[in-house]
């Protein structure tokens, strides 16, 4: 086992070293003439307006949240999947299958919830909440001031 994990370490070192050595070698060969215009951020040739480190669209964070839930789930199914065949050959197949089904059932409920909440839609049309709808209705009923 130590040998196997050692190989992972060796490959990681080699990958990092491969990039580092080539970039260092290149440093001896390549030109290096920095000037202010060259080092500006590319924005189609125009002078850049503001930085890019801004608040970003919230949709991406929703996707990330949903991902975390389901990725953990996949990670949890892996050990069960490995053990499933041994259980099956021991005659405990139906028991293991029921366990998997219960676990997946809970997760499918989660997927259905996210789906029903329309968090999987990329183009979201904001539905007015009930309170907002009521205030909007009241406002339309109010007599116009002046």
């Amino acid at each position, binding site marked *: 086992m130590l040998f196997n994990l050692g*190989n992972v370490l060796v490959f990681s070192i080699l990958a990092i070293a491969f990039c580092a050595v080539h970039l260092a070698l290149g440093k001896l060969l390549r030109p290096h003439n920095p000037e202010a215009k060259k080092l500006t951020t*590319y924005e189609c040739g125009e002078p850049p307006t503001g930085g890019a480190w801004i608040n970003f669209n919230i949709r991406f964070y929703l996707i990330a949240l949903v991902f975390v839930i389901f990725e953990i789930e996949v990670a949890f199914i892996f050990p069960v*999947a*490995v053990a499933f*065949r041994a259980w099956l050959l021991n005659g405990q197949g139906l028991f293991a299958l029921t366990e998997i089904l219960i676990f997946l059932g809970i997760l499918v409920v989660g997927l259905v919830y996210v789906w029903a909440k329309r968090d*999987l839609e990329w183009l979201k049309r904001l539905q007015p909440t009930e309170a907002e709808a009521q205030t909007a209705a009241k406002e339309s009923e109010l007599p116009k001031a002046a």
Partner: protein
Amino acid sequence: MQSFIDGLIASGAFGGLPAEAVYPAMMFLFASLVVFGFVLPLVTITIWLERRVWSRIQSRVGPNRVGPQGVLQGLADGVKNILKEDVVPDAADRPLFVFAPYLLVWGFLATFVVIPFSSALVIADLNVGILYIVAIVALSAVGVLMAGWASNNKWSLLGGIRSAAQVVSYEIPAGLALLPVVLLTGTLSTQGIIQAQGWAPWDWFLFHSPFTFIAAFAFYISALAETNRTPFDIPEAESELVAGFATEYSGFRFALFFLAEWGSLYVTGAIMAVLFLGGWQIPTGWTNNTVVLNIAQLTVFFLKAYFWVFLAMWIRATLPRIRVDQMMSLCWKYLVPLGFVNLVGTAVWMVIWPEGNAFVPYLMVVGTLALIVIFFRRVLYHLRRAKPELYFNPAI
């Protein structure tokens, strides 16, 4: 590989050197052999071949000047990239900007630890092989996001965030599509999964049941999305985002992104070959020579893996890019539920037929062959009606 080194030590090939010194040296030797003797030539040739294949599909000629038929084009591009100036924008976050390509190259090179070449040739047969690949490939998502953020460029940020959203989303269908095979074999080791299959198509997991068949293609589609390939190349989207997360990169750092992209293409093909196409399995008994046997296995494995690489080139030349909302709905509304169905279906299939159905694999092989025959008859039909100058001529 470990038993081979043990054998060398036992035979006294290293004299009196202690084993602690021999092991790391041999590990570095084999790792360098794989990286410099196999992966880098493979990637450069794949890039050249991809450009040639696109060209043929689009009635162009493609790169054919450097070396015979232009084979050395990748090498020439590499040399050119090393000689180019390395520009780091003033506004960029320099440490992150410099480090991002390292993560990408690391994420794809480290997978070659567990990717087998033949029955004897594998660097290390990790007992968590498949899970290890899923885990280490995720490094590239971090690399791309880091590149996009550190550039402090709007195009890069858009590309990086899109890529992160896409890669993390498609990791779930990819993981779910691996699970039917893990259920069937009860192991995560790549060699163990190959040994559970046979050389004949009906012994492959691809044709084991309808569920594994669907899972194979679900995995392939997810893998295309994870490696940012067309039709899922919206993170790079040349026509809208300049070069996506790689906009601010130049010189060899830029080349590293491409190295990682085309390298992961072969990794995808190799995983497909391991999980669903029987890996290096060939008919045994025709030779007693271990070397000949392993060369034959290596050839078979490489061809099976490269078939999927070729398919990705073909798809890239054929299909347009899909929209971001289409990409998300394909993942969450089709592939993820399909992954659940495949998982449960395979489990139920195993409870009913623990040793696999005796009839279905043959039926599926025959069905697939029929589809292939129909497809080629269609292609020939159109070729016969095409203009003579459009006939396939590999010598141009």
